[in-house]
């Protein structure tokens, strides 16, 4: 057993094998998120250890970025949410968080909860304002329930 | 006796009448180097010269260099009223520059932009060939006839040790009274933007905010497969795929098309080709070191590669007002740096944003 392990881990084989770069931590299909507002469904899902799973990212690239709308499967339901903090590498002056954070919203852009208990990036303010159109959903309500910006 | 026979012959020739003249069609050679071209490389050989004599040769060379440096630009003497006016159709001379690296600048709204630094090293006009005399090599069957023919302006950059190149090559520079240069390039210019040989060209030939075209050789990447060369996707790593993970796959169909179509993307040599990047914006100019900062990092070639700068031909980015014409004469007290208005100079205070 041990011998076979050693022979498998021979550095010669490894050196020409697979790459070992750090993972990208991207938000894409089926990645798990952390709900950071105090909506009932979100709180229960996190408490049960069944965090929501992304089933659609509403942009062309299918890779989520700060302020992107996602569809998540949470406790057997489909809910929409907005990404408010990312784990992947960010550009200069944009904060990078230790987890991928999401705030659940309904179709009109109104958050399901009434408080966000983690800091959210200031750049979100501009992004959400840009995404809000007069006739569509109003996402800026989310900013109103934020407690802290970094 | 002899003269008599000669006379006979002459008379008989006189009676001949010439009706038709045939001439054999003459084909110009396919490859003909430009006539200012001279072989440059010299085979170095052991010369058995003592150290003192080498120093002496070096000293003579330095003296010549000094002599060259003390040459005044002939452009100063030109009367500005006599010189032709610039109009959007005229073509000015360009510059030979060396790419010396990239570094970031910040714009006034706090954005970081990467720039490429181009150093204009020791550029001098070597020779002018007016349009009537200029007959370039014919490489294509059908030659585009230009309405207003252009003259050819030969520009050299970077003085080198004359003993490293051939005598013929050095002879090209004798007219301008220069030591030989490492790089020679021909710029097609309209006749009114003629510059007398011996004129130094500075980075201030262009202005900040102008757009330029940059011609350079791309990085040499050697023989590459289709994934790197053409961005093919390759084939899956698993699922029964054997020995064909990075291969191009099918390259054509059968029937009448059962051959490789011209232009099919295949593996081959990648890079080391001349490419032109058009419409590059100039953000900053240093007049002391003759350095130009251009927006973006897409200028072909690695650090230290040579590139040629022209006024852009993109219709929307062309000059609208007259640039320095025919070139910027040498002036003593220019400001050290020119910045585009979008760029934040490092000497200024930190950026603050106003509440709307």
């Amino acid at each position, binding site marked *: 057993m041990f011998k076979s392990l050693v022979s498998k881990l021979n550095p010669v084989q490894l050196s020409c094998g697979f790459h070992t770069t750090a993972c990208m931590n991207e938000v894409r299909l089926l990645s798990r998120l952390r709900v950071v507002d105090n909506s009932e469904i979100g709180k229960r899902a996190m408490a049960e250890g069944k965090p929501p799973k992304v089933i659609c990212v509403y942009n062309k690239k299918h890779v989520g970025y700060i302020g992107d709308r996602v569809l998540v499967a949470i406790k057997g339901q489909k809910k929409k949410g907005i990404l408010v903090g990312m784990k992947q590498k960010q550009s200069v002056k944009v904060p990078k968080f230790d987890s991928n954070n999401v705030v659940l919203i309904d179709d009109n852009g109104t958050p399901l909860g009434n408080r966000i208990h983690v800091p959210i990036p200031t750049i979100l303010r501009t992004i959400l304002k840009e995404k809000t159109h007069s006739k569509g959903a109003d996402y800026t309500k989310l900013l109103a329930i934020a407690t802290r910006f970094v | 006796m002899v003269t008599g026979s000669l006379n006979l012959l002459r008379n008989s020739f006189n009676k001949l009448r010439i009706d038709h003249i045939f001439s054999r069609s003459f084909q110009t050679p396919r490859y003909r180097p430009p006539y200012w071209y001279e072989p440059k490389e010299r085979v170095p050989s052991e010369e*058995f*010269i003592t150290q003192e004599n080498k120093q002496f*040769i070096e000293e003579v*060379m330095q003296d010549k260099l000094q002599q060259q440096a003390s040459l005044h630009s002939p452009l100063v003497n030109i009367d500005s009223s006599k010189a032709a006016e610039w109009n959007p159709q005229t073509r000015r001379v360009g510059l030979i520059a060396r790419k010396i690296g990239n570094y970031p600048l910040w714009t006034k709204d706090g954005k970081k932009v990467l720039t490429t630094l181009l150093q204009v090293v020791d550029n001098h006009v070597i020779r002018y060939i007016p349009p009537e005399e200029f007959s370039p090599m014919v490489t294509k069957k059908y030659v585009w006839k230009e309405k207003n023919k252009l003259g050819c302006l030969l520009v050299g950059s970077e003085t080198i*040790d004359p*003993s490293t190149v051939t*005598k013929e090559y*050095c002879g090209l520079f004798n007219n301008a009274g220069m030591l030989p240069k490492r790089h020679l390039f021909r710029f097609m210019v309209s006749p009114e933007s003629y510059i007398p040989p011996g004129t130094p060209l500075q980075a201030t030939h262009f202005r900040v905010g102008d757009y330029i075209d940059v011609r350079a050789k791309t990085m040499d990447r050697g023989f590459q497969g289709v994934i790197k060369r053409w961005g093919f996707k390759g084939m899956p790593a698993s699922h029964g795929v054997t020995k064909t993970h990075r291969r191009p796959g099918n390259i054509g169909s059968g029937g009448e098309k059962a051959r490789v179509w011209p232009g099919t993307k295949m593996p081959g040599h990648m890079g080391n080709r001349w490419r032109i990047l058009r419409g590059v914006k100039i953000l900053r100019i240093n007049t002391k070191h003759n350095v130009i900062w251009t927006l973006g990092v897409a200028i072909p070639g690695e650090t230290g590669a040579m590139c040629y700068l022209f006024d852009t031909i993109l219709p929307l980015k062309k000059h609208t007002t007259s640039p320095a014409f025919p070139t910027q004469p040498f002036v003593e007290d220019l400001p050290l740096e020119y910045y585009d208005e979008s760029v934040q100079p490092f000497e200024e205070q930190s950026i603050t944003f106003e509440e709307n």
Partner: protein
Amino acid sequence: MRRQILCLSTKITHNSCTKALPLTRFLSTQEAIDRRYHLFTLEKKRQLDKVGRVEKIEVQYKGVPNDCTLVMNKGISTPYDCARHLSEWHMDTSALALLDGTVYWDMHRPLTENCTLELQNFRVPEPQQVNRAFWRTCSFMLGACATVAFKDTVPVKLHSFPGPDIRSGSFIYDVQLPTLDDWKPSQQELITLGAEYVKLVRQNEPLERLEVSEELALEMFVENEHKTKQIPSIARNHGKVTLYKVGKHVDISKGPMISTTKQIGRVAVVSVHNLNGSNSEVEHLYRFQGVALPTGVIINHFAFSILTDRAKKLNTVRSPVPKTLEHEDSESIAMKA
């Protein structure tokens, strides 16, 4: 033939004011060269025939690849023949022979007695004598070049050349061009002269040496009044005059000279100066100047241009005042320098 006679007759009519000169003075340059060459070959043949029965001498060769002893013919074999026994490299590169460690001997001069032999090329540790022989040969060749280069209508009279002084920067030949008054060669003419020189060099002729009696020498140079004036003073010591021949050109020189013309490499005829200002006795005297390097020596064109620039200046080694002892004197002076 008819044309030559015509030419001669026109010359006679042209020079009719100087009646006193005999007819032989009016040989054309080419005819004079042919005549001299003919006399030289006759004399050489006569001297070779005089050797008679072949005697053997032992020549001890020193140098690369190894020392050896060669048995040669007395009075017939030359150092060049010894080199032919060794290798092609020896034939091509050796310019002078050093006999017994003291006597510098021409490569094409027959050996007369037992001796040791060292072959000298241009890279030997002490190349002074080889360099001097080279410089002397260059001057000699410049004379040959000057006689060939002009048209038939321009008579050329060689005057003399001083001993080799390398430090002066150029080799010289003084030539009288009686019909040209204040001639200044253009750049193109200088290049043509240089091309003629190179043509001569390319012929790869050996430089042959011959010692002749004073009378014969006078007979050979009968049409050249400068040489006829100089010959008695040269012959005063030994009664003999040393002549050198390359191709068809024969001239007086003390020697020694290098082996063949091929050993002259890069060469440039740089300038021609008019010496009339300094000398009143010889009219229309021109000083031809050039600079050259041996075949094996390659220096870059920039360094060579420094040398040519310097050689353009008038070389004032010795103004050609017809002193009697010129050859010996000037050489000794040059040696001291």
